[in-house]
């Protein structure tokens, strides 16, 4: 591996870690608060990417407005899913999980019917510049996600520790009944958690839309790495998800560069199985934030 390729791969790995972290943090937050995980979470990411495609590439909006719209779309979808599926199924873990599996089909067909199947949608990059560093060129667009991931995940952690609302979220995650006795409205907290989860997935989708080949099946491809990150990090743990996102961002990017994408998934799954066999609760347990 030449030093040029090495630097490029490291940059890619950091970007992939940032993206995975943005997706996984929302997934794990929603799990922590509701004890329900969302198999359609990857499809939130896909909807964010398509929002940017529709508004920026087709509609001619400025890129940043389109990304802001993707965040809003993600949050709204999160709220709809919370109200329509998780709330009626409250407490029934298996049903919630299978219902979101059905939801994957729904989103995929909706997007496919509106914007077309199969072919990936090219989105022109708004920033053509690249960082030059020791002979390696790293596209600006590709690493754009990194500062956003750091700020939004750091912000979320701060929010969960310092703000009343954030502490209420953590209380619900630890013990919903005790939280309800303290006068916390659980339904509002689960709605908040799903809105945050959707918004973060939408943000990741919007930012990465110019890098990835956008197809309706994108959500199905991204969900497996995201789930692996959440499980290895420890379900419900934001810090764990972030740590695992960095680990798997590097593992997947390096294996993809050195061997191929299929092997990268195989290696990640094996790492996950080993971690779970040794530490069934994941790297950072179950306690939130």
């Amino acid at each position, binding site marked *: 591996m030449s030093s040029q390729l090495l630097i490029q791969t490291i940059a890619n790995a950091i970007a992939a870690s940032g993206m995975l972290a943005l997706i996984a943090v929302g997934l794990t937050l929603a799990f922590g608060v509701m004890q329900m*995980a969302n198999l359609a979470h990857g499809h939130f990411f896909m909807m964010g990417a398509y929002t940017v495609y529709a508004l920026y590439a087709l509609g001619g909006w400025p890129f940043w407005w389109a990304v802001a719209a993707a965040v809003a779309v993600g949050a709204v979808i999160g709220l709809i899913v919370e109200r329509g599926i998780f709330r009626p199924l409250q407490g*029934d873990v298996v*049903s919630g999980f*299978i219902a979101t599996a059905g*939801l994957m089909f729904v989103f995929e*067909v909706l997007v496919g019917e509106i914007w077309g199947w199969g072919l990936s949608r090219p989105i022109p990059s708004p920033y053509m510049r690249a960082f030059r560093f020791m002979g390696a060129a790293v596209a600006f667009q590709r690493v754009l996600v990194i500062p956003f991931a750091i700020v939004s995940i750091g912000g979320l952690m701060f929010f969960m520790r310092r703000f009343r609302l954030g502490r209420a979220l953590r209380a619900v995650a630890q013990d919903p009944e005790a939280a309800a006795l303290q006068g916390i409205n659980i339904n509002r907290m689960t709605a908040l958690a799903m809105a945050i989860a959707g918004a973060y997935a939408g943000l990741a989708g919007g930012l990465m839309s110019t890098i990835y080949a956008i197809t309706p099946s994108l959500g199905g491809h991204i969900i497996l790495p995201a789930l*692996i990150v959440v499980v290895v990090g420890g379900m419900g743990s934001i810090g764990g998800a972030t740590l695992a996102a960095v680990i798997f961002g590097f593992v997947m990017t390096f294996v993809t560069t050195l061997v191929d994408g299929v*092997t990268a998934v195989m290696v990640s799954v094996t790492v996950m199985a080993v971690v*779970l*066999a040794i530490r069934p609760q994941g790297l950072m347990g179950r306690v939130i934030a």
Partner: protein
Amino acid sequence: MSSHSLKKYKIGGLAPLILVLSGLCLVPFFLRAYLVEVAMMYFIYIILAQSYRLIVTVHDWQLYHIVLYGVGAYTSGMLAKNLGVPVFAAIPLGGAMAGLVGMAITLPLLRTKGWGFYIATYGLAELIRLTWLKFRNPFGGSTGIIDIPWPPVIAGIDFSDRIPYYFFSLGVMLLVMLMLYRIEKSRIGDSFKAISMDPELAASTGINIPRHRLMACAIGGFFAGVAGGLLVHRLGAVDPKLFNITTTLYLLIWVVVGGTNTFWGPIIGVSVMHTLFELSRPLIEIRPMFFGLSMVLVLIFLPGGLEGLISKAVARLQKRDRVAPVET
């Protein structure tokens, strides 16, 4: 609970069962060739859904069942093609392999609970499926394996023909159903149910939970593998696409829409949903959305599935019958 609702179906004794069976025996002689092929898929899917329900009774909604179906198909196909194992021996061997793989996947995850478990089973299933995709030798990569031997001629009956194979798969399905039924009614079946209802209580009565979970995975996996063997020797080919997450979603849809509380739920689920699937071929693009939505709606509004709806309707009818004479 389950034996209680089973009794409800026994109105009129065995007559309906015999009627259905004789219907199934006559049907292939009157149907178009294509529809006979479709009927065989029903049998395979019913085996899959039934064996999945066995695992679900232990409350392990794992996501590798379809991949075990694939393990059965690949093993049986490769044994017959590369090693010349007779087809009718290769099918149960494929089942045994699938059962072993099921246990091997579950073993490291036994201590993982709830979510982690479901997701990890999905990940390990992908690992197996990607192995088929990655290694062109011996699994054939994305194009899979072709030219898998057809079943032989036995006693003058050519089992590679459509109608003999129809009866063969019908027979296998009935045998599998009988075995699963006996397992459910046995002591092991009771232990499974006890584990799903209250694991802690079950453990305190001396039921070894990990052992029973592994047992459910092995038995369910075996039958899934047998279903794969049935498939592969009819198609004559196999590829990784047959066993992807979409197929898993359809399996979940059959089982959820049909209901898992009694033995008959998955059969109802496959019968209804696969019929709708076949009928909606003209709407192929939006079909998944309809199926996804139907699963979501059933989960929210009809937690017992169609089977629950039917047993409720039957119960209500019986009540009305009982009340009616009093009123007159």
